[in-house]
């Protein structure tokens, strides 16, 4: 076995970046599809003949999705004296909007799951962070009084980093192809972590937008993923601003995997607080019990 060649990681990172961007531009990037059941359900919701009974027939075919539906319908947030005992009853309690959000959430969660031990933990952490941003975004819109749809903010928050696990998986593939069978779960990465991070940071947003468009999500969600890099002062209450702000709050609350530039983050919070018209007391209220709520949601 010959020794590994010396690698210019910066150049490698740049090349990988170019590959990803080229694939996005030429529409040849392989993106995860919506799971079949979720796709059927979402198509049904869009059709004029939609009925909850038909939806329940589809949901019943996927035990995991069915379990999620029952769990959410009987959660404390929707609890009544009598628990829902059938899928149909559960869907009646959830309603179409919540069902749609749940389908996207379950589908998105699969994107963040990885069998590769090198990135599995990071993907899990990223998912927890995305849940926190989604939850904060929804609460900020709901309680902020500035208009906007809480569910759009929730889905946008959930997917704002969805491009990262997709790009990470792509890099793993590239690595395997480049080095053949040398790498294993316990061996050091052939691509240096700084190159990994650089490629992911510079490409994940475009990949996230491509995924959101493939899944035919609402334009407001696509825009929020695309534009949440910087605040848009011309459209203050837009979902992108909310997601940007919620992202910074989640990082401040320690719900993020990876390095955080605290000065940069504090500046984001300071700008966002004025942009969205909040103050510290309001932020304290929406952050209250956040970690506990996220633990409950992830359980």
């Amino acid at each position, binding site marked *: 076995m010959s020794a590994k060649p010396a690698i210019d990681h910066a150049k490698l990172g740049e090349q990988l970046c170019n590959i990803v961007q080229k694939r996005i531009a030429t529409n040849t990037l392989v993106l995860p599809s919506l799971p079949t059941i979720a796709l059927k359900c979402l198509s049904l919701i869009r059709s004029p003949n939609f009925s909850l009974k038909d939806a329940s027939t589809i949901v019943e075919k996927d035990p995991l999705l069915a379990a999620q539906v029952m769990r959410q319908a009987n959660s404390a947030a929707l609890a009544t004296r009598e628990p829902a005992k059938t899928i149909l009853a559960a869907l009646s309690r959830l309603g179409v909007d919540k069902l749609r959000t749940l389908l996207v959430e379950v589908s998105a969660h699969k994107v963040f799951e990885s069998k590769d031990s090198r990135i599995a933990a990071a993907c899990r952490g990223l998912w927890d962070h995305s849940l926190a941003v989604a939850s904060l975004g929804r609460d900020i819109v709901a*309680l902020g009084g500035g208009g906007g749809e809480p569910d759009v903010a929730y889905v946008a928050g959930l997917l704002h980093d969805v491009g990262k696990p997709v790009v990470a998986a792509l890099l793993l593939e590239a690595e395997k192809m480049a080095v053949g069978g040398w790498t294993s779960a316990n061996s050091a990465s052939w691509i240096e972590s700084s190159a990994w991070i650089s490629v992911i940071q510079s490409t994940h947003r475009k990949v996230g937008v491509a995924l959101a468009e493939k899944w035919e999500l609402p334009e407001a969600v696509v825009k929020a993923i695309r534009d949440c890099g*910087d605040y848009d002062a011309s459209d203050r209450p837009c979902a992108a601003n909310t997601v940007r702000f919620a992202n910074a709050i989640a990082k401040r609350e320690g719900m993020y995997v990876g390095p955080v530039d605290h000065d940069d983050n504090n500046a984001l919070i300071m700008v966002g607080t004025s942009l969205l018209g909040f103050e510290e*007391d309001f932020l304290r209220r929406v952050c*209250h*019990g956040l970690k506990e709520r996220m633990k409950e949601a992830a359980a």
Partner: protein
Amino acid sequence: MPRILTVDDSRTVRMILTKQVSELGFEIDEAEDGEQGLLKLEEATYDLVLLDVTMPVLDGPGMLARMREAGNKTPVLMLTSESKRTIVAQLMKLGIDDYILKPFKNDELKRKILKSLKMGTDLPVVPIPDDVPRESVSSGGGEDGSPARQFVDILLVDDMENVAKKFRAALPAHLTVNSCVSAQAALNVCRERIFRVVLIDNEIPDVDSSVLMNQLRVLQPHAAFLALALRSVNKVQNEMKELGFDDVLFKPFQPEAIDDLLQRYFDNQELLLKEDNVLKVAAFQGRAERMEKYYARVAELLNGGIETVAAACFDDFIVDVSQMPRDPQRTAQLITAVDASGKKFGMQLRLVGPEDVAKLLKSFAETSGMAVFTSVEQARAA
């Protein structure tokens, strides 16, 4: 009296700031760029500087850097249309007290000026209320004090504590009730608990009850929201429903109204079971005095059920009255109304019930011609 310096190249902005600051009762001086601002700081002592970013001669970051280098620790409130985080991060490193993005609301300006001057804040109640101590929320019956996600039957929001006492006394002991005397407390408790019914006084000081209702509704999407209103001859019920409330409960509380509330929202009994085009009416349970309410509720549910069946494009619908009480007049009236409802959608009614129901219906002209089947299967096969 606090003295404030505003540094901005826009004369319009300086005029607005001068007006707002003067309304607070503070003194204010002006400068049109960073250099002038530094000169003013040498001439006088200020309690606060309102500083723009982009200015000719010397910009805001430049002026701030020189202030801090000279040991001047006067609090600075940045007032700028600059929202790039890199620039704001740089300003924060130099030491700013707060930040306001232009265009700004006067409320935000005044609040942040007062906060920077450490003079307390003047916060609006809704939509940005203060946090309040838990002691302002009182509870009754059955709570174990466990945190978040606790399920409670009713939340009552009324600034008069006696209302909560009277309400609690009118309810059966097994129902759990929380009460709040302010909008802030209500918002807090709705973040932590889940309610089945929320009652909001339609006259809470300092807050519009319908605005509060809309905010609480987001936190409690499955709760019923009722307005608490004084009994009067005005059409307050329609008015409250137009504002988005589900219903109204009148004060002082009447036993019948409380009974209605309990039956509507806490009665476990499902009075109508639906499956495809079959609507099965459940038996009556309770005191004889409530029979009329039972029939009224069944009629309401059947109308809704018929609409659902019609929306599913069935040609006929089956109503199973086997378990209904044998009140001849009421039953006949109900079935006549149900038949008429079905005909509006072009659907035919098929009735299911035992022989005594068939005999009962034969004694009324309106229902004498109706066929009554002994089972759902027979009705389907017909």
